[in-house]
């Protein structure tokens, strides 16, 4: 399996990995998993005045999935909360040169963000 240099770098030093150590004020979480894809993605985002101030993830998955979660975590910070519904998975796959057969794994990251959005909006 070939990995782009960005995937390798993010896999080795993933931005946003882990959990919030201190205040949980304004933190919402969302999770998605799929046994056939062997992936579980969990995102936690801290939203202050409608802006995502910080993002954390925990992912059980392949290097492409971990790298994608790191990229997303970095992308979310500083964006309005609506960004949780605006992830362009196809563009993300292109950026990280994710093989087409792994596209489904990135969709789980999208699902986890959508659940964060739903919690924030009070719809679940």
């Amino acid at each position: 399996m070939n990995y782009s240099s960005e995937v390798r770098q993010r896999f080795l030093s993933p931005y946003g990995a882990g959990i919030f150590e201190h205040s949980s004020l304004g933190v919402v979480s969302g999770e998605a998993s799929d046994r056939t894809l062997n992936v579980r993605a969990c995102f936690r985002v801290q939203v202050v005045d409608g802006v995502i101030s910080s993002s954390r993830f925990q992912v059980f998955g392949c290097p492409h999935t971990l790298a994608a979660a790191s990229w997303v975590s970095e992308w979310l910070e500083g964006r309005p909360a609506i960004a949780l519904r605006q992830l362009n998975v196809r563009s993300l796959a292109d950026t990280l040169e994710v093989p087409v057969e792994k596209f489904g794994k990135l969709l789980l990251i999208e699902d986890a963000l959508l659940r964060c959005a739903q919690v924030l909006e009070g719809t679940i």
Partner: protein
Amino acid sequence: MKKTGPIYLDYAATTPVDPRVVESMNGCLEMDGAFANPSSVHLPGQKAAQMVSEARAVIAARIHARPQEIIFTSGATESDNLALKGILMGRGNQHGHLITVKTEHKAVLDTAKVLNRAGFEVTYLDCDSTGLVEVRQVADALKENTILVSVMHVNNEIGVIQPLPEIGQLCRSKGVLFHVDAAQSIGKVPLPLNEWCIDLVSLTSHKVYGPKGIGALYLRPGVQITPLVHGGEQERGLRAGTLSTHQIVGFGKAFELADTKNEAPKLEALCARLWRGLKSIDGVRLNGHPDQRSPSILNVAIPGVEGESLRLAIEDIAVSSGAACNTDSPEASYVLKALGLSDSLAQGSLRFSVGRFTTIDDIDRAITLMKKEVARLRSLASFTPDW
């Protein structure tokens, strides 16, 4: 001085060619070497033929056989094909029955599938959770039309050693032929053919510090097979094609150097050291039998880490996840699944295999890297699948 650079712990996939083997092979390749066709009647041809003959004798002696019982092939995969197809198709009985095991190498299983599609009946025996097949299972599977039983000596993924003496005796008593894939045996575990009732044995050179592309099939006297490769009278008409003198000489030298009695304890000590280090990682478990296994193979399951991520994280250690033949497949190892492992646990398993050039430093570096990366990946996931 401690080594740096990749750590090679994939000897079950293939081995580096021993320098002494390389030297013996070089002698066959140059103008003043034994480069001629061993089938030619002139003096250079006879020189090459002599070297082939000597190598054949060494290989035969290693397995307590006679030189005329050895047929050279391109490797154990071809030998497996020749054994299964050569026996079953040679019987002229399209309703013959083959018994094998679900954990055999793909060279046996895929050949069995082809034979099945051609009309032969095939029974695939299950193994227990350690990978062992019971003799009783073989006995229960035998039928009137059973022609051949094929069971590997040492499983290439988990190293388990099957009860060949007992299976052989059973087959002999029932008049059924018994084939053994012994690709992983030589230099690690004894294979005394003079004591066991085995009719065909597949051998290879590249797992025991010899060159790739050469192997052999042992054929007990009186066993008739149909050739698969035609076009010459080499190997008593059983496998046509110009003999590769340099590869055969290398094969012979590799077998000459294989010293099970002295090497096996060293391999066992290295594997034991590796296992002691790895089992200190929380949740790690051995795949296979704790005792009845090759001294050089260690297959472990590591819960809580995704397989592909683990392999990238420890890419400085050359190991296999499943058989080397299947590295492009994203699917979990069929051998580990036959043991009852879940897909996720099977994909997160690694096969380590040590060899002649493995050092204690290699083992210790591997343990250190494994502990570090498993801890890191587990912290990234904080999750152990229940699938």
